[in-house]
């Protein structure tokens, strides 16, 4: 039975079966008084009624409450025949009255917190209670002392009650001193107080720790945080909205323990990508991006780390991060890198609002290196040329003349960086009735890059709706439409990155001639022939446009009490277009664009989802069960066409491939027209059981069986089970009465997840068509024949990478919930890693093939701490700190050999993955100071293998350590010289409220991470004829002058610039990531302005960064800095108005 339970068809027949059972209630009601009917209806609609006892007619009625879905339709049918009216006066209370006089009296009394004694809240047969003892009091938050509005105050054993006013006041009459008052409100622990002698009660309610009571999205369902048995961290709308970022992933930085967020680039709009690593790196070759689930839709993995920047951040209600395997395993084979669940905002019944949030600001680069000025450059360039035996460039021979001609010279960094604007508008309308709720939003975001001529523009629309079709059926949808356009520049390539060009362009070269035409370096006069960066930013037109529609509809049917069937259908259409147009443009620099070229790629990535789940909630006494079963199907396809055309001299204005403007002779090249497509399907079965005993112990089991088309035929399916359990110590007798422990829970979990990125079709032995042989006596290059043979073997056993994770955690809340904490300790082991394995050539093949071999381990601790530091009426300070630390280690490479990870301009690579060390550690030489004398060179190892040390090495050159003591420095003398993994990362968020001011201070940092600063490779001399950093002024010029900065010599015969610890820097940093000061308009003023709320705010981002790192920005994705787009310092002003 259980097995069948998981198949889709049976699910449906079960559904049909239940449908005949479940709608046959609500007949044959006994006649009751109207008061009785109202009393019964309270539970159904979760409201209270206020009326004078004698208002109701003394009748008995037959009335079927269950027919009604909304309180208003119920009241309408019940009251109207008796000429009674009703009006909603509080969130959950209606006044029932005959005359408007009566209404006015009751509401006035209510507002004053003073019920007329003849008034009853709801009623029973006895009608109004005769009250003898008037009680009044104030209800406050026990921790903050703030008045609590809307607290329900009920006389125990009766239905008599009231609500507190805005200032926390209540008045109620009770029978006598033995009466007990019950105080309750959502988010607080309920309290009962025996009235006693005191008629003026000061009641403090204990806030349920905010996080404990939060609802957490757990994948195919939700759960209260306090009930969690797994490791899940969350960020709410408030945290996200406070940051002026386009990519929600950036809002997670420093907010969620165990999640390392690295902005790969400061390019506007997060287009450069934001690396999200949950608990370290789990795969060597198959991607480390977490699965991103938006409103239940697992987005297809495009191996891009800027997926979230297509969605409007203003729409996000919460982001939940599933960290341990037990939490993530419900997403099975796609979850080994963790899961990020994004939930967007939805409308709420009765709460209609229109919110406008807009801000505008400016950004600028916060730290740029200082380069040599024209005169210094002329002197030092000549020095470097003389040292290597080259003639001095005539243009630079006379430094004095250079100074008088160029002054300081061109400041290229100043030329390419600018002050840039950014603005954002977000409008959200939401509301609805009991039956239907909606949310519309529209957002516009435009950010100019601090790099000249780069920008991003995004437009996004959202429509989320929910409709109750009947009591049992609910349908709804989420839909988002986005367009994002990026105008980018090359800031990532090792050769033509604009930032590198700006760093190295000589100050004695100008970007433009006097007539406005482009200038630039010229090989013959400047010895520098690289493109002019200004020209690179202005002329080639590189745009990227992404159109994305992501949506789903769902239907949820309640089959029986607690049993719900839900089906979801979704689609994600992602269309992307790249256009790179480079028109022929004259320049007096060395690199004019001689021919017009155009390249375009258009790709469509459609993805479809169908999902059916059945959930059952049941409570038997102290036993609470939640069961989930389901089936999902997802298919994605990826197809693109690219085409280019080049070497043409066609009209530069119309960058279109088949432009009619072209004449035949212009069409010199049309190339690379290609279409490709990749299909992938997933078929999955899911199951989960959660059991809770008496709020004391819980356990959960979840299983997902995933099938992927990528896997070898015999390994199509993978099963990912997990187990988790928790024990709430605070509900045990020995802690229940503890004065300072409010909540304490220990958790443990173990489970499996997977990585499905198996290279497609590797289970087939493909035929390679690229061999060449020739027959016939053709001369020259003729006679080539087709020659085809397998060049790789195949792996019929290829399967997913498997991740197993053990997690132990403690959650707690102490000192009246003033301090909350959560600690998780974990060990993740990624097994069956897919690595390329070279097999013996005896096999007749030579290409290594992907094989499941190798193991990687991450061990770490996630810590988060929340404290209400000050909680007084006018001054509140809440702080939230997180610290994450992990250690990454390669346990086994199995059949595979150590991997070197190259970087274009560094021979032999700069990163290596080998046993017992973290992935991609820096691999290079170790320096041992600078040679101060020829004698020192003579007694040291030969510095450049195969060369004559008397000519290749001179005093002033680096001395590299001969690690293997073989007398020569060669590749065998390279070693581990550090890695990019931080010792720990941390974040500290402070929320301070002083009267109407809210101040948010967010500090974030990373400690112990190293960066291989390769910008210095270009700017500290030796390899380029371009400009140098001003640090070279402190170079070695004679014995004792420097032990860190080598002599200046062009062509670098000693290879001082080889990958070595010279370039490895500690890039620890502490950053004031964000500071935001908001002023909320006092309620009275807001009222006069006819708005519900209005808030004005000022935000500064990256206001300061404390670091010893010398590059542009210490936050470097991947650890090798080749001059990435630095993050900007941003100052902005905004306003948030709710109508």
């Amino acid at each position: 039975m259980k097995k069948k339970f998981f198949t889709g068809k049976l699910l449906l027949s079960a559904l049909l079966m239940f449908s005949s059972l479940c709608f046959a209630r609500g007949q044959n009601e006994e006649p009751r008084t109207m008061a009785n009917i109202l009393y019964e209806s309270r539970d159904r609609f979760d409201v209270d009624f206020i009326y004078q006892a004698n208002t109701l007619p003394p009748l008995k009625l037959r009335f079927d409450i269950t027919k009604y879905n909304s309180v208003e339709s119920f009241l309408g049918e019940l009251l109207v025949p008796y000429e009674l009216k009703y009006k909603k006066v509080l969130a959950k209370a209606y006044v029932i009255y005959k005359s408007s006089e009566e209404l006015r009296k009751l509401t006035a009394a209510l507002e004053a917190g003073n019920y007329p004694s003849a008034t009853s809240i709801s009623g029973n047969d006895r009608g109004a209670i005769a009250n003898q003892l008037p009680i009044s009091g104030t209800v406050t938050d026990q921790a903050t002392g703030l008045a609590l509005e809307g607290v329900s105050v009920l006389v125990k054993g009766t239905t008599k009650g009231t609500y507190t006013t805005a200032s926390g006041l209540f008045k109620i009459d009770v029978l006598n001193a033995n009466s007990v008052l019950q105080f309750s409100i959502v988010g607080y622990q309920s309290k009962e107080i025996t009235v006693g002698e005191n008629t003026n009660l000061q009641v403090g309610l204990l806030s349920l720790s905010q996080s404990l009571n939060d609802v957490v999205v757990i994948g195919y369902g939700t759960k209260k945080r306090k009930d969690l048995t797994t490791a899940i961290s969350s960020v709410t709308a408030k945290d996200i909205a406070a940051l002026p970022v386009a990519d929600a992933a950036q809002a997670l930085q420093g907010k969620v323990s165990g999640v390392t967020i690295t902005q790969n680039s400061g390019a506007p709009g997060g287009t450069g990508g934001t690396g999200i690593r949950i608990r370290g790196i789990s795969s060597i070759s198959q991607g480390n991006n977490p699965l991103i689930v938006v409103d239940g839709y697992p987005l297809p993995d495009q191996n891009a780390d800027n997926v979230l920047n297509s969605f409007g951040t203003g729409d996000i209600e919460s982001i939940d991060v599933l960290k341990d395997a037990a939490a993530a395993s419900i997403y099975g084979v796609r979850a080994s890198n963790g899961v990020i669940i994004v939930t967007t905002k939805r409308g709420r019944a009765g709460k209609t609002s229109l919110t406008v949030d807009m801000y505008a600001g400016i950004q600028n680069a916060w730290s740029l290196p200082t380069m040599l000025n024209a005169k210094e450059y002329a002197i030092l360039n000549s020095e470097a040329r003389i040292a290597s035996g080259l003639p001095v460039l005539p243009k630079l021979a006379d430094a004095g003349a250079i100074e008088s001609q160029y002054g300081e010279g061109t400041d290229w960094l100043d030329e390419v960086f600018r002050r840039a604007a950014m603005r954002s508008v977000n409008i959200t309308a939401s509301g609805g009735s009991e039956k239907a709720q909606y949310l519309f939003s529209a957002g516009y975001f435009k950010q100019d890059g601090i790099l000249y001529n780069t920008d991003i523009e995004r437009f996004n629309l959202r429509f989320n709706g929910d409709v109750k079709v009947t009591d049992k059926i609910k349908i709804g949808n989420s839909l988002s439409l986005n367009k994002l356009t990026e105008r980018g520049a090359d800031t990532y390539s090792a050769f033509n990155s604009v930032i590198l060009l700006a760093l190295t362009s000589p100050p004695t070269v100008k970007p433009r001639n006097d007539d406005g035409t482009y200038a630039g370096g010229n090989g013959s006069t400047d010895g520098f022939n690289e493109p002019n960066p200004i020209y690179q930013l202005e002329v080639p037109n590189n745009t990227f446009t992404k159109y994305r529609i992501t949506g789903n509809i769902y239907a949820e049917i309640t089959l029986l009490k607690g049993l719900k069937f839900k089906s979801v259908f979704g689609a994600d259409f992602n269309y992307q277009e790249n256009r790179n147009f480079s028109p022929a443009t004259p320049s007096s620099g060395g690199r004019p664009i001689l021919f017009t070229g155009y390249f375009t790629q258009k790709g469509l990535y459609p993805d479809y989802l169908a999902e059916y789940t059945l959930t059952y909630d049941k409570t038997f006494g102290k036993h609470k069960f939640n069961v989930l079963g389901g089936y999902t199907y997802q298919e994605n396809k990826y197809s693109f066409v690219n085409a280019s055309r080049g070497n043409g001299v066609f009209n530069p204005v119309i960058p279109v491939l088949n432009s009619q403007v072209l004449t035949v002779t212009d069409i010199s090249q049309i190339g690379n027209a290609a279409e490709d497509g990749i299909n992938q399907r997933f078929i999955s079965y899911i199951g989960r059981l959660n059991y809770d005993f008496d709020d004391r112990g819980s356990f959960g089991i979840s299983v997902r069986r995933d099938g992927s088309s990528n896997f070898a035929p015999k390994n199509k399916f993978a099963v990912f089970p997990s187990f988790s359990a928790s024990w709430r110590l605070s509900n045990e007798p020995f802690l229940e009465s503890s004065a300072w422990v409010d909540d304490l829970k220990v958790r443990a979990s173990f489970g499996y997840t997977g990585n499905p990125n198996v290279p497609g079709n590797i289970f087939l032995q493909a035929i390679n068509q690229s061999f060449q042989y020739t027959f016939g006596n053709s001369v020259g290059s003729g006679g080539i024949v087709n020659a085809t043979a397998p060049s790789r073997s195949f792996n019929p056993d290829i399967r997913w990478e498997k991740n197993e994770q053990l997690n132990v955690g403690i959650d707690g809340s102490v000192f009246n919930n003033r301090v909350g904490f959560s600690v998780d300790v974990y060990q993740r082991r990624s097994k069956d890693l897919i690595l390329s394995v070279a097999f013996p050539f005896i096999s007749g093949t030579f290409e290594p093939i992907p094989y499941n071999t190798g193991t990687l381990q991450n061990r770490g601790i996630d810590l988060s701490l929340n404290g209400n530091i000050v909680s007084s009426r006018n001054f509140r300070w809440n702080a939230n700190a997180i610290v994450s630390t992990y250690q990454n280690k390669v346990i086994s490479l199995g059949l595979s050999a150590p991997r070197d990870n190259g970087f274009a301009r560094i021979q032999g690579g700069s990163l290596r993955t080998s046993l017992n060390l973290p992935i991609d550690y820096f691999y290079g030489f170790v320096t041992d100071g600078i040679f101060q004398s020829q004698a020192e060179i003579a007694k040291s190892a030969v510095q450049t293998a195969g060369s004559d040390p008397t000519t290749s090495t001179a005093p002033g050159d680096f001395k590299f350590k001969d690690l293997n003591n073989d007398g020569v420095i060669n590749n065998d003398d390279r070693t581990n010289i550090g890695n990019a993994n931080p010792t720990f990362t941390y974040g500290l968020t402070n929320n301070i409220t002083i009267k109407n001011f809210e101040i948010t201070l967010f500090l974030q940092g990373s400690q112990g991470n190293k960066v291989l600063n390769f910008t210095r490779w270009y700017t500290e001399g030796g390899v380029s004829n371009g400009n140098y950093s001003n640090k070279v002024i402190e170079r070695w010029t004679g014995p004792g002058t420097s032990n860190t900065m080598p002599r200046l010599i062009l062509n670098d015969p000693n290879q001082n610039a080889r990958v070595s610890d010279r370039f490895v820097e500690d890039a620890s940093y502490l950053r004031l990531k964000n500071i935001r000061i908001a002023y909320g308009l006092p309620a009275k003023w807001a009222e006069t302005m006819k708005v519900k709320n209005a808030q004005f705010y000022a935000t500064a981002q990256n206001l300061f960064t404390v670091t010893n790192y010398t590059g542009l920005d210490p936050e470097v994705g991947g650890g090798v800095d080749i001059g990435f787009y630095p993050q900007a310092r941003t100052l902005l002003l905004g306003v948030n108005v709710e109508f």
Partner: protein
Amino acid sequence: MKNSLRNNLLLLTMVSLIFTRCKEDLLQIDPTIPINSVDNYYKTEAEAIAAVNATYTPLSAIYNGAAWHLGDIMSDDTDLGGGGGGDGLETAELDNFSVTSFNPIIGTIWAQCYYGVLRANLVITRVPDVPVMSDAIRKRSLGEGRFLRALYYYHLVRLFGDVPLYTNVITVQESSEIERSPKQLVHVQIIADLKLAETLLPATTAGNNKGRATAGSAKGLLASVYLWLGDNTNAALKAKEIIDNRATYGYDLWTDYGDNFKLENENGKESLFEVQYRSGGGQFSDFGAGQKLNTFFAPRAQDIVQSSGYGWNVPTRNFADRYEKTGTTYNTIIDKRRNASMWIPGDVFGSYTQAAQLVGSPNGLNVKKYFIPIANTAGDNGGWTSAQNIPILRYSEILLIYAEAAGATAGKAFADQVRARAGLAPLPNGLSATQYRDAIYNERRLEFAFEMHRWYDLLRHPDPNYFVTIMRAAGKTNVLPKHRYMPIPQGERDKNSRLTQNEGY
């Protein structure tokens, strides 16, 4: 109300059924771009031919990147020249008998031979099942498969002795577990393959098929194998069969020895089998379709070939002194083969004159065979490689195999044919058997200069220590009996623990 509820449910159920596709065979997706896999290939004649063609391609790399280091430089014929220092360390290891199991040249020939073996096995096992195919081409293809497999195993067995022997399509797993077979078994397989190949292959090829193996190629290789094994009876029989039927195969000697090495004479009348090259392809690669010997052998840095020449394969004095000459200097050599084989000081080509001493060449000697001058754009169209084929078997070798295997009485006349073309007098009569063999050995040395035969001639000598004696005499004091076999590449042994190492490595 209840009705609408039912309707909704019904609708939902229908919608669900439409969208639900839970058939698990959906997980089988055909690639958008069809992938030719070993399982679905070999279905047409064109595919069969392409598979055969790929079986030839390892020859390009073997003869570009390994055969001359082993056959010539390791022997007493040539030494490593080049620029000195660290230039060509892997070749120097061979030259100086300090070779280790990490030597990349050894690795190259091992790997390339096995690529050829697998491809030949694919041809031999799959071509019979190609549904529609002309019988002639099916026969030819199977013959080519057999011939090439024999040729690759012949290279392997001569260099390594016992080697893994397989004739099926091997899996990765099997390749990691296969053991070495005794060399006798390998020889049995080679002979069986060649005997089949000579019946399957056509007598001649023409037009665009020139360069494919022929029945003569198979017979010639078989004669060579017998000679290698010391089976003189069969070697003589097989060689004689070719000589007697030379009209059928169109074999004859070129009048001028040098005609063998001209672009226009490729696959000519004296050729039984040669590696086919074209120019331009595979810049700086051993593995392309172009031949790199022109660049590697030409006088170093003299700009008479593209890329100016590396002078890596430099004739020894020991070799150059074998030529008959009237005086004491090399310009008195009377052997006509010298000028087509070797640069000597004073040789003039256009405005170029070979110097008495060059970088890497202390005696001013360089290999001239395969020389395509810089101006010959048909042979070398500006790239780094040339179109000149490399001979594997020439008719003159058949004559010399017979001359050697048949003994002086029956064979001398055939050796004299070869000598006559070189402008030399017949061998003297009345030589003892040993003297006669020494004379043939000498003849082969000069006739096949720089054709990568010499090392194997040293090895196959009836005196098992012959190569040690000769190489010691040539000044290679490191040489040891173990060098009869090269080390099994360590990389292969790392991946297949069952591969034993040859003694002494």
